[in-house]
């Protein structure tokens, strides 16, 4: 029995119809996106919490992310992430073009644009891996005090950063990495830093033009550089050599910065990765004609929603990690 228009209007929410004019699958994707958006905002806001809590000593992003492929030793802040942002926005555009081609039931165009989207996503994940590699490897190295503060080295003559490898002296020692194989089996340690604390400290004391830069920011937002005498006092507090960053130590400054960087960009990267995998599945389904037979390309639309959401999150991650 066919309902009249008036009956349809009256029974809009009692089942069998689409009150929101969207299919079940699309609505569920929106449910997921809204809850995932809240998850990401929880992460980003907790990053904001840590940052405002340490507002006078937070690492300066421009000094942390300075690499660009094939430009060795050139200080290029921002350019690489800007490129990554463009790649992701562009792959978002090819995705929406695929959705549009799907509306016109144009199989070859959907295939082509889906392929471009997948390539863009893969390039983005690769770029992120490269960014992680540089971040983990570190550049200059630093000392860490007992309180967890990072001491970085500056050449007082020209104000430039100095790598610990440039001035550390070599002191022969028998200290070697403690492995599970040559001690109690449940105790072992990772790789030792290239230099011991003593080697760095004595090298520092021997070089009269070196001073220390601490984490605290001055009123202009620059890291405070100590005088030579203060530096010599400060270096006495050092307990560890830090090279690069991991979840426990971070040569760039506050260790929370590294933790949040790994966690949030990692979680986002995982989303991009799963997006690429889902896109691949849909891509092959398009090729073998599943949606052609089904009569509509709504699956492309659903995965498109997810893909745009990933792009949307990156816009925020980009702002809060690299710009602000």
């Amino acid at each position, binding site marked *: 029995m066919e309902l009249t228009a008036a009956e349809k209007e009256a029974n809009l929410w009692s089942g069998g119809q689409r009150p929101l004019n969207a299919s079940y699958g699309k609505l569920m994707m929106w449910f997921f996106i809204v809850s995932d958006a*809240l998850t990401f905002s929880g992460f980003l*806001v907790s990053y904001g919490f840590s940052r405002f809590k340490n507002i006078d000593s937070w690492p300066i992003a421009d000094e942390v992310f300075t690499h660009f492929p094939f430009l060795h030793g050139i200080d290029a802040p921002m350019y690489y992430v800007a490129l990554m942002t463009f790649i992701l926005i562009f792959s978002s555009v090819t995705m929406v073009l695929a959705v549009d081609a799907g*509306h016109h039931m144009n199989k070859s165009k959907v295939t082509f644009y889906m392929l471009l989207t997948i390539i863009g996503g893969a390039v983005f994940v690769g770029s992120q891996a490269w960014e992680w590699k540089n971040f983990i490897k570190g550049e200059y190295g630093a000392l860490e005090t007992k309180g967890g503060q990072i001491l970085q080295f500056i050449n007082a003559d020209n104000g430039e950063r100095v790598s610990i490898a440039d001035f550390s002296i070599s002191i022969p020692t028998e200290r070697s990495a403690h492995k599970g194989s040559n001690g109690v089996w449940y105790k072992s340690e990772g790789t030792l830093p290239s230099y011991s604390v003593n080697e760095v400290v004595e090298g520092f004391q021997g070089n009269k033009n070196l001073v220390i830069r601490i984490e605290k920011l001055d009123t202009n937002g620059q890291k405070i550089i100590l005088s030579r005498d203060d530096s010599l006092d400060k270096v006495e507090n050092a307990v560890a050599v830090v090279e690069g960053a991991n979840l426990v130590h971070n040569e760039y400054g506050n260790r929370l910065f590294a933790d949040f960087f790994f966690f949030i960009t990692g979680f986002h990267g995982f989303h991009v990765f799963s997006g690429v995998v889902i896109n691949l599945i849909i891509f092959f389904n398009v090729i073998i004609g599943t949606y052609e037979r089904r009569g509509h390309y709504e699956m492309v639309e659903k995965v498109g929603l997810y893909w745009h959401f990933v792009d949307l999150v990156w816009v925020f991650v980009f702002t809060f990690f690299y710009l602000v």
Partner: protein
Amino acid sequence: MAEDLHKLAIFRGLLKFKSNVQKIWGVLIFLSIVTTIEVVLGILKPEFLLSYFLNMKLLNWIFIILTLVKAYYIAWDFMHIRDEKGSLQGSIVLPLIILIPYLIFILVLEADYIFDVMNTGFQSWNF
């Protein structure tokens, strides 16, 4: 399907596109321009934007506002919220714009308080 239901005007009707594909490219150009502005500002860091407004640099406020603008156009044109029914638009956007600012308010205010305690308290983090 909804191929004829696309709303093709952006900027409150200032810019109208002939087809959905054209609108997509138009939005891409707009997003690229905004991103370029952000990157240029981030590299140059003009002196007059480094003054503080509500405890945050003017430059950072500009970044956040531009980010929200980009988010709006990604959601509205790429995710087609513009073409959805008002009730669906509301059920997607309202929970977010109610809950997220609330969370930001609570945590950032608390962070600022903790900063003050550590900054002005007897104990100092100087070791």
